[in-house]
């Protein structure tokens, strides 16, 4: 190894994957799409940063793949992920299709935490630093005008860099606030596809027709997102839809669309596990027809725990996990072998006002051990305050 020339890059594995490399310019033009850092295949954001990070090192969902999120119990954590996914698609200018839901779902999408808001804080703090402390109260007014000018100049500076085609890392995945409502961009395209309720035919026929038509009609640089919330739930779906010939052929039809329009669409769906357990053959086929399979199992006590802890000031620092997230399959990694696998299959998730966080699963200390922990807590704090005098 020591005889190897140091400046020669190891590009073997990346080159072998010729397809994404052949026309990178074309790929960049797709809205909200960036190449995977691992092998250059185009990926798009799921709207949840920690979910993007989970997807086998590609830092996003590869175009042409689908995610199935299974959730047990009556909670709707998967719904939050689907909302983030939809909102992200709308903000990226992608064409969003929602299956089986009424249109008012669009009004309940979470709003993005604005880019300007994020930028303002550092600017303000910098301005504060410059002002002498004794003038700080006097200078409030002047400083605020100053920052306002800065704020206006910031987007102007950023605009050319965005226009030059460099996908900025900030714009790839937005941060959403569940308490806000999304302001739909003027050019947003969002379709709500209704299922056929006629018991003699497949409820999914109009969905596939709609998707096929809109894909064939749309411009070649349009990226489509398909969102299928609580698949097969009796609240939305007619009873015959869970028959294998309908649901499995529908998923196969989605795969046909993926094959016909490669790198143009992504899909996400959620499945209520309490109604359709993973031990059934039908669910297993549905999993096999998805590229990523994640299972959410909310902890039963989490609702009480949140209520108590969120009142405390320290709640934001370390929120307790609200459930277990298990990864059963990842796109690209498992079938094509490209990606970085981790030995972790168990994760925990926390849904807070702003984000859905996925962390590795660590067992909490044993119940009886809390006294010892509390005892050590003040001790630790005391030492710290002793040091900082």
């Amino acid at each position, binding site marked *: 190894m020591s005889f190897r020339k140091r400046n020669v890059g190891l590009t073997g594995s990346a080159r072998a994957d010729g397809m994404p490399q052949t026309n990178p310019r074309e790929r960049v033009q797709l809205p909200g799409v960036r190449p995977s850092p691992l092998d250059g295949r185009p990926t798009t954001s799921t709207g949840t940063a920690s979910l993007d990070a989970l997807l086998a090192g590609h830092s996003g969902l590869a175009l042409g793949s689908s995610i199935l999120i299974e959730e047990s119990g009556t909670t709707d954590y998967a719904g939050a992920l689907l909302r983030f996914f939809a909102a992200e698609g709308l903000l990226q200018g992608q064409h969003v299709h929602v299956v089986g839901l009424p249109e008012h779902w669009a009004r309940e999408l979470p709003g993005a935490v604005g880019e300007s808001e994020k930028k303002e804080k550092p600017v303000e703090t910098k301005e504060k630093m410059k002002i002498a402390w004794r003038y700080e109260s006097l200078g409030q007014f002047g400083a605020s005008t100053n920052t306002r000018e800065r704020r206006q100049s910031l987007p102007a500076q950023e605009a050319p860099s965005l226009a030059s085609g460099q996908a900025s890392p900030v714009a790839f995945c937005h941060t959403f606030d569940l308490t806000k409502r999304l302001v739909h961009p003027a050019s947003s395209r969002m379709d709500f596809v209704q299922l056929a309720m006629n018991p003699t035919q497949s409820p999914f026929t109009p969905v596939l027709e709609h998707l*096929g038509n809109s894909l064939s009609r749309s411009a070649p640089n349009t990226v489509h997102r398909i969102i299928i919330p609580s698949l097969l739930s009796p609240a939305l779906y007619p009873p015959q839809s869970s028959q294998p010939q309908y649901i499995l052929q529908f998923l196969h039809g989605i795969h046909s669309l*993926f094959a*016909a329009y490669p790198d143009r669409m992504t899909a996400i769906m959620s499945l209520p596990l309490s109604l359709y357990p993973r031990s059934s*053959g039908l669910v*297993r086929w549905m999993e096999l027809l998805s590229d990523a399979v994640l299972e959410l199992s909310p902890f039963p006590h989490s609702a009480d725990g949140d209520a108590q802890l969120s009142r405390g000031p320290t709640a934001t620092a370390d929120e307790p996990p609200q459930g277990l997230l298990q990864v059963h399959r990842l796109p690209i990694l498992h079938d094509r072998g490209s990606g970085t*696998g981790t*030995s972790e299959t168990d994760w925990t998730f926390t849904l807070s006002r702003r984000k859905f966080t996925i962390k590795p699963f660590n067992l909490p200390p044993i119940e009886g051990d809390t006294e010892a922990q509390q005892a050590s807590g003040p001790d630790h704090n005391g030492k710290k305050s002793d040091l900082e005098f």
Partner: protein
Amino acid sequence: MPSSIPAPLAAYIADCLTPDSQTLVTSVLSTPAPWLCLRLLYAGLYGVEDSARHTEQTGHEVIFVSLLRPLSLWTEMGKKMGLDLPSLLKSRRVRYIDGLAGGTTSSTMSTGSATAESDPQQLPTTRLKSMALKDIRDALDGVLKTPSISTPSTGSSATPLSSSTSTTGSARGGALTPRIPTAAATRSFSPAAGRPTIYIDGIDFLLASQPAISTVELQSFLATLRSKCHALMLACQADSPLLHSSSTTSPDAGTPLERNHAHFITSLAHSTRWLFQLRGLDTGSANDISGVIRVSRGGDDSIEFGPNEGQDKNHVQDLVDAEWLYQLKGDGSVRVWARGE
């Protein structure tokens, strides 16, 4: 340069290519089988060993039916292991029946099972009219009947095409990996090699998605197919939810889907020569292990008592059931090793 076929598997894969044999590859959710399928395909085309004489000697045409996975996946993975599917498709050594092309509603699909050769950019694949068993049978019969590269009628038109692909194939092969056997070797392939090898990925999906198809019907379809081809290779799912009804004693256990699947896979396993099972690690997952591969003898041992019994029998007896770990890497290579190695 290591062969693209992992050394421990080579003897087994070679044995799968004996005439009239049937091979079954089963996989589970976390360990999909495309890498193994492509290696079986590669072996069918070029033989297991990585030498030039084999590319001329063996070499059956391959009919590749993919019902669940797109051609782009096979192309991408094939390219990494030295299997240039686009040029093989153009030279008609591999003929591809695309199960994912039927679902789209655009007007170009109405041609049904006609090969789309008019567009030079498009690879010559056969589109299925629908996923119905009849259409698949028709498409396969059509492909089996259509003259392959050896007949003069298509030969005249195919010659310029294949010569151009041979140059591009070698150029591309040189750029990628030097061990891609170029299409020049394809031309020396003798027409007497006869029947093609048929590879079907995801045949069990038919049973699951169309309750109207009975297990017996599908089995008879496969038996007919087996009589028409050199070797039949099938890839199916063997997840425990799909098979658990076979382990319970009560006949009413499970949904019809599960019962049919268990019945189908079990009877397939009984009629196959070799069974390749892929599954995840029992103890969880690991960074450097993709899964476990187990090769075991199926129920079909009739070939052992064939005409050239003596050496064949010895040869077959050398191969015992075995289990390895495998790791699928980002560059498309696969490492297969025994536990503790």
